[in-house]
C-alpha cells in the first residue's frame, strides 16, 4: 500500500503521508499554525483541532492569511 496520498492544497495537488493530520501538513510546509487559517473541504478547522483532523485522498485544503488590500 502506498503510504502517500494526493490532496489539493491551495489549488495544487500534493502528495502527503497517509493519515497525516492538518497540523502535520502545516509542519511539512513550514507554516506556523498561528499565521494561517485552515479550511478543510470547505469547513474551517480551528487551531486546537488541527492535530485531530486527518487528511484523506482527494481532500481540498485551503491555507489562507492576510495580504495587502483595500
Amino acid at each position: 500500500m502506498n503510504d502517500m496520498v494526493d490532496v489539493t492544497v491551495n489549488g495544487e495537488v500534493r502528495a502527503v503521508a497517509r493519515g497525516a493530520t492538518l497540523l502535520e501538513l502545516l509542519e511539512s510546509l513550514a507554516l506556523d499554525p498561528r499565521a494561517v487559517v485552515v479550511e478543510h473541504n470547505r469547513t474551517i478547522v480551528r487551531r486546537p483541532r488541527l492535530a485531530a483532523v486527518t487528511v484523506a485522498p482527494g481532500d481540498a485544503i485551503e491555507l489562507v492569511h492576510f495580504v495587502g488590500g483595500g
Partner: protein
Amino acid sequence: MLDIPFTIGGRSFHSRLMVGTGKYRDNDTMARAIEASGAEIVTVAVRRVDLDRTKEEGVLYHLDAKRYFLLANTAGCYAADDAVRYARLAREAGFNEFIKLEVIGDQETLLPDVQGLLVAAQTLVAEGFKVLAYTNEDLVTALRLEDAGCAAVMPLASPIGSGLGLLNPFGVRTIKRRLKVPVVVDAGVGTASDACLTMEQGVDGILMNTALAAARDPVAMARAMRLAVEAGRTAYLAGRMPKREVAVPSSPLEGMLD
C-alpha cells in the same frame, strides 16, 4: 471645536481616515504611509498562502496588529456565498468580527452587486459579524443595508482605484442624512481636495487605498489626506456660509472718502 466620537459597531476611533494596505511599491513605504495618515483602521485582504514562498509574506509581518485595528475585506468576491466564505476565514484569523463586505457585480467598473451584497450582509449579520458594506451611492440600497443590520454603510465616491473623486455629492449627502448607522465613503478619492470635499458632506469617515499607494510620494500624500479629512470634517462642523449669486462686500460701505 468638539466632535462626536467616530464609533462603528460599538468601537470608537479618533481618526476618521481608514486606509488600505494594497498596491504599495514596498512594505516599508506602506508602513510609513499608514503611520503618516494617522489611521487606526487598516484594511487587509484574505488570500491563499504562497506555498512556494516566492512572493512576499503576509501583511502582518509588516504591520503591528496590536497598534492598528485590522479590517478584513471580501475584495474580489463576485457572489454572496464567496463573500461569506471569505468573511468566515477572516474572522477565524482571530482579530475581530468586523468585515468590510464587498460583492462585486462587474469586472470593468468593480461596481457592487447590491442584490448579492444584501444577501451576504443578512447572512453575516446573523452570524454575529459587524458588517461594513461597500455599496454605490444609491439611497434605497443604503437603507436596505441598514435594515439588514450593517454596522456601517460605505458608499463609493467613484469606482475603486479610479481616483475620480466624489462624483455624486448629493447622493452621498442624502445617504448620510437618512441613515442612522455611520456612513464611510469608500473608494474613488484621488487627492486631498477630494477627501476634504467628501468630509464636507458630513459623512463619518473615508476609506482609501490607491490614492496613497499610487501617489508619487505615498507618505506625503498620507499626511495630506490626514489634514484634508480633518479640514473637511471641521468645515462641516463649522457650517459653511450660504452660497450667493451676487457679491456682498466684506468692507464697510460707510466711511468712504468724497
